[in-house]
């Protein structure tokens, strides 16, 4: 099967799920996985393709979510207007961070953005007048018309949210796939291989990084808007470093720099975490080591594991033509 056919199959299957009348819980899990997947796609643009580790990702998720929440709740905007504006705000915020942060490289960049991530969370947490501070924002409404639309096709609101998330995810996958396969995307990959090399190849590293950052944070804000409307409540905890690390973990388990990884990782890990809840006090005793084992034995993530397994079934690749073994006997020189 060709790559894109897999994707069509996955999305068609996923679209069929609500028709079997699953419980609100199952749909909710689906929506959560998809929100995390969108976030992971955003992170993948920077980390997987461009090779930069931004640890403020959840902060931009928060900016998107709070922008949506504030615009709809306090300004009375329609969600359908607030959402794209929130995406734009996240992208601009990403640009502003990038302008400064990309002066640093490597670990310093990571920690720099971690600092910014903490600041974003703290500001959201402390700015009572705007964000509701510790109380959070409560009562964000579902998108106008979503409930009616869902009812008209015989679904509950949760089914409507599920489809909204599914469409959002599909858009994200298309956007990321297009970026990856483009002239621009190849330049990002070049930057991943090292700033200096990319520079010498004539790539404007700084501007490419900035644009990658904007795409990444726009996607995070996109996920944030979806989160705000589907949950109806916003608290600052979901915008901090712990959330960033959770997404990072999902992405790593799925497979860095791959197109399927950001979906597979959340799907597996979120479902796993839900199921481990039954273990109560033992859930992290199991989850922690499981995570370590996954990282150690599937270092390229699930996608890498899949490639390894499928590769094993095909015969080993023949040695490159210039390396034919030559079994001549050792002869003596000069004779």
């Amino acid at each position, binding site marked *: 099967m060709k790559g894109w056919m897999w994707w069509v199959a996955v999305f068609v299957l996923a679209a069929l799920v609500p028709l079997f009348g699953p419980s609100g819980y199952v749909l909710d899990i689906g929506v959560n996985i998809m929100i995390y997947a969108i976030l992971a796609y955003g992170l993948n643009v920077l980390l997987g393709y461009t090779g930069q580790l931004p640890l403020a990702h959840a902060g931009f998720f928060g900016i998107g979510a709070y922008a949506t929440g504030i615009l709809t709740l306090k300004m009375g905007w329609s969600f359908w207007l607030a959402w794209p504006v929130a995406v734009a705000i996240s992208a601009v915020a990403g640009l502003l961070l990038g302008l400064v942060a990309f002066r640093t490289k490597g670990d310093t960049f990571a920690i720099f953005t971690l600092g910014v991530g903490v600041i974003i969370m703290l500001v959201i947490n402390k700015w009572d007048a705007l964000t509701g501070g510790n109380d959070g924002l409560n009562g964000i409404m579902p998108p106008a018309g979503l409930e009616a639309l869902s009812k008209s096709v015989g679904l509950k609101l949760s089914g409507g949210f599920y489809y909204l998330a599914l469409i959002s995810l599909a858009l994200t996958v298309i956007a990321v796939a297009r970026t990856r396969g483009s002239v621009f995307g190849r330049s990002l990959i070049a930057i991943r291989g090292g700033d200096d090399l990319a520079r010498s190849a004539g790539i404007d590293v700084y501007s490419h990084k900035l644009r990658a950052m904007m795409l990444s944070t726009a996607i995070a804000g996109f996920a944030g808007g979806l989160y705000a409307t589907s949950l109806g409540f916003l608290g600052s905890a979901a915008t901090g470093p712990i959330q960033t690390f959770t997404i990072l973990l999902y992405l790593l388990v799925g497979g860095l720099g791959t197109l399927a990884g950001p979906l597979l990782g959340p799907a597996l890990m979120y479902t796993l975490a839900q199921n481990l809840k039954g273990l109560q006090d033992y859930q992290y005793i199991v989850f922690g080591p499981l995570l370590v084992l996954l990282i150690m034995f599937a270092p390229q993530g699930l996608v890498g594991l899949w490639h390894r397994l499928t590769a094993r079934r095909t015969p*080993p*690749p023949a*040695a490159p033509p*210039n*390396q*034919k*073994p*030559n*079994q*001549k006997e*050792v*002869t*003596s*020189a*000069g*004779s």
Partner: protein
Amino acid sequence: MLEVRDLSVNYGHFTALHAISLNVNPGEIVVMLGANGAGKSTLFRTLSGLQRASGGSAVWNGTPLTGGKPEYNVEHGVAQCPEGRLLFPELSVEKNLRLGAFVHRKDAAGTNKELERVYTLFPDLVQKRNAPAGSLSGGQQQMVAIARSLMARPQLLLLDEPSLGLAPMVVEQVFAAIQRVNEAGVSVLLAEQNAYAALDIAHRGYVMESGVLTLQGTQQELMTDDRVRSAYLGV
């Protein structure tokens, strides 16, 4: 003496060395010629222990070298100046060199003496002694790499393309130094693209192609061999 018997090395499915056998006698300089990708570095890395062998043996004066433990090999007198230099880029040149004498850590006086020796060999390094090794020019780094392998005061010195990136005059000095080291009783195995210079100081040599040894002989024999002359001496 170094005895290599049927040594094979694989990288995954790819076999880089096909059961090669060779030896280096005490006090000899042996040169290993071969095109790019022939497997010279693989051989050197295996002898120094950085690379595990997948078959065969390599024994230095009764010490097996194929255990995949470079620290063990260097303890037993086998030091390597590796391809890619493998320096400690953020440590000073002098620290790099002193660490080269790690196996003689109990013998500070000997290390200091050796340090003086390598500084006279590479006077360029003297003024760079406190600079981070990574800030040096390519050739200067190569000098540090060679000097560091000498600091271990080995009995068997493995030099993987030591002349890489060195100015002609320095190359001469390096080869002269190799010869001096050798005259002091150290056996040397040398891989070189610079076949002329290498054959010049070598006693014997081998030619490697695609992971097998195709030719061996004394210095004179190799120098006059047509195949060697056309492929490696550019005649």
